[in-house]
């Protein structure tokens, strides 16, 4: 059944380019493997956002398999053979770290709906590189701030051993300020028994972990199975407790504190319109922040396409994207000096609904209008 739905949604996505005259947008994203649903969220969110913006567009979607080499090959084909000048879609920082320089060298624009590794936010910032989501560190600084606000002073921080994992732990430590034990896990690891033993041994006041996609599901389940859920509180950044993870994990997530830049209960017009559009298009798939970021990316790109006209003028398009004149689903949105967002962050609680399943409730704003620490190093 699920397979059927996936196929059906793929057909829908393929059928979308009814606007045959529209600007071609290259979407390189992760559609296979345990994190494949992240790419599906991004693809579907982009489509809905662009449709809502009223721009004429055509999406060219390709899978990167979470592999930087594949990503570069796909980008190369899109840029040099198909002449696409606007790319987006990458989920993972290791892929974007390889693909983005390739796109910028070719004179194209890259707008990130998710990954934002630190090297590209600081000295290597570029006029044609935009990030709509967040900078990797700031995503986890919010969790550090939340853990500090809750009064904890010792923590164990776990993340996979790749760029975003290192950014995650650095970001958490920066705002937390307490004593942190760092544990790096394997990028493909799915059995965390050894890590559970180490957490138990350290007995910290709080655990912070960053494991997006299928890894996050495995981690939360094993955390509960190891009997740690009730004893050591956990603070998570939004990628580690997205709606799909919560659906798969079930009650094992109740009681966890989260931090986010957007939540489904936000009370603004753009967010309500998005939630309704998503529910109509994908009734069986929960909307995650990946979908929301991609929707915002679609709104931004769409607003720029409408403004600059779809005749392939890259400079005009760049200026229109930089202006960021769109109504974001997160309420307030602006680009900082390195063209990464300046936005608010919220603390959320994962509570049980009537059926005992987890639901995310927004609690309070913990950081207001913050950018990222790398912006200062960016000279454009």
């Amino acid at each position, binding site marked *: 059944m699920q*397979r059927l739905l996936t196929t059906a949604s793929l057909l829908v996505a393929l059928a979308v380019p009814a606007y045959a005259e529209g600007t071609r947008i290259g979407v390189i994203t992760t559609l296979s493997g*345990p994190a494949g649903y992240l790419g599906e969220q991004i693809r579907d969110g982009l489509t809905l956002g662009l449709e809502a913006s009223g721009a004429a567009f055509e999406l060219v979607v390709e899978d990167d398999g979470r592999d930087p080499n594949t990503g570069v090959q796909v980008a190369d084909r899109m840029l040099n053979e198909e002449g696409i000048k606007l790319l987006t879609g990458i989920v993972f920082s290791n892929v974007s770290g390889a693909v983005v320089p390739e796109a910028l060298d070719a004179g194209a624009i890259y707008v990130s709906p998710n990954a934002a590794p630190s090297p590209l936010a600081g000295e290597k910032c570029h006029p044609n590189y935009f990030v709509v989501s967040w900078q990797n560190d700031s995503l986890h600084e919010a969790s550090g701030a939340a853990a500090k606000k809750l009064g904890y002073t010792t923590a164990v921080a776990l993340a996979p051993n790749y760029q975003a994992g290192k950014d995650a732990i650095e970001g958490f430590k920066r705002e937390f300020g307490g004593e942190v034990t*760092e544990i*790096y896990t394997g990028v493909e690891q*799915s059995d965390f*028994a*050894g890590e559970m*033993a180490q957490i138990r041994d350290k007995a910290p006041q709080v655990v912070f972990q960053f494991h997006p996609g*299928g*890894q996050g599901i495995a981690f939360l389940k094993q955390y509960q199975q190891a009997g740690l859920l009730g004893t050591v509180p956990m603070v998570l950044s939004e990628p580690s407790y997205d709606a799909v993870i919560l659906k798969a994990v079930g009650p094992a997530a109740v009681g966890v504190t989260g931090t986010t830049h957007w939540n489904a209960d936000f009370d603004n017009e753009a967010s309500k319109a998005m939630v309704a559009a998503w529910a109509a298009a994908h009734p069986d798939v929960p909307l995650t922040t990946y979908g929301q970021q991609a929707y915002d990316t679609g709104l931004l790109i769409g607003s720029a396409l409408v403004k600059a006209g779809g005749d392939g003028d890259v400079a005009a398009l760049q200026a229109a994207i930089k202006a960021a004149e769109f109504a974001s689903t997160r309420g307030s949105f602006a680009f900082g000096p390195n063209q990464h967002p300046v936005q608010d962050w919220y603390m959320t609680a994962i509570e049980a609904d009537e059926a005992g399943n987890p639901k995310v409730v927004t609690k309070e704003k913990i950081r207001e209008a913050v950018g990222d620490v790398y912006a200062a190093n960016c000279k454009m």
Partner: protein
Amino acid sequence: MILLFEQLLNGLQYGVTLFLLAAGLTLIFGIMGVINLAHGALYMVGAFAASWVAIQTGSFWGGLVAGLVASGLIGLVVETAVIRRLYARDHLDQVLATFALILIFNQTTVLIFGRQPLFTTLPEIFSGSVEIIPGLPYPTYRLFVIAVGLAVALGLYFLINKTRIGMLVRAGATNRQMVRALGVNIQGLYTAVFALGALLAGLAGVMASPIVSVQVGMGDEIILATFVVVVIGGVGSVKGAFVAGIVLGLFDTMLRAFLPATLQQVMPGPEAQALGVGISSMGIYLMMALVLLVRPRGLFAARG
């Protein structure tokens, strides 16, 4: 101390999983002389069948039965359709044919289940943890996995040492030609052994499915370690597979658990982790090289 004990249990659990896989592989290799690279595919079949049935029916036990039946049956089919034609061929042909089987199994699984991993929930009695010593609640399910692995080891011991079929298996591992010359139905024995091996691989997959994410290619990751177990234990020896499986599981887990932390005391976090993980993933191969230096036929070689 508690940490060490918990990591020992984790190592034991990994060890029995390796044993379940290696027991079948070593019998197939030792008795039939076939190198079966597709053994990991049967592990995947067991995991997928169990997870799918568990998701559809909501019953873990139904999934367990389904996983065993599916892997055993597919083992039978594979033996009759492919492996039977490979006994007389040399090892290169066997490697090529069984490698093709891996690709066929992986792509068929993608066609049926897609690339999304399957996730199952545990039955109520296994979802929590037991406090085995004060201060150490250990997941009930992982204890169950260890218990099942040890029970299978005991069962195989009796099967191989106390029954007629076990006697034939031992004889076959020692001298295949002689068994055939004595008029034993060697084809029936081969089929039974292959199906038993497939069943054990499927059981390992079923046991692993609620812990790890069930996805295409999951068997390819673990099959390398399984071959190391078979080689260290001695080809054809179930006892060797047991000892080597447990030792390797413990060794590997201990390296992964303690090496990065030890290195972290002398160098920065991510680098220590990378080096620690690097060395610990080499660990079992280093151990295999050392064992082969001292005992070229493995610890408990069956053939003289």
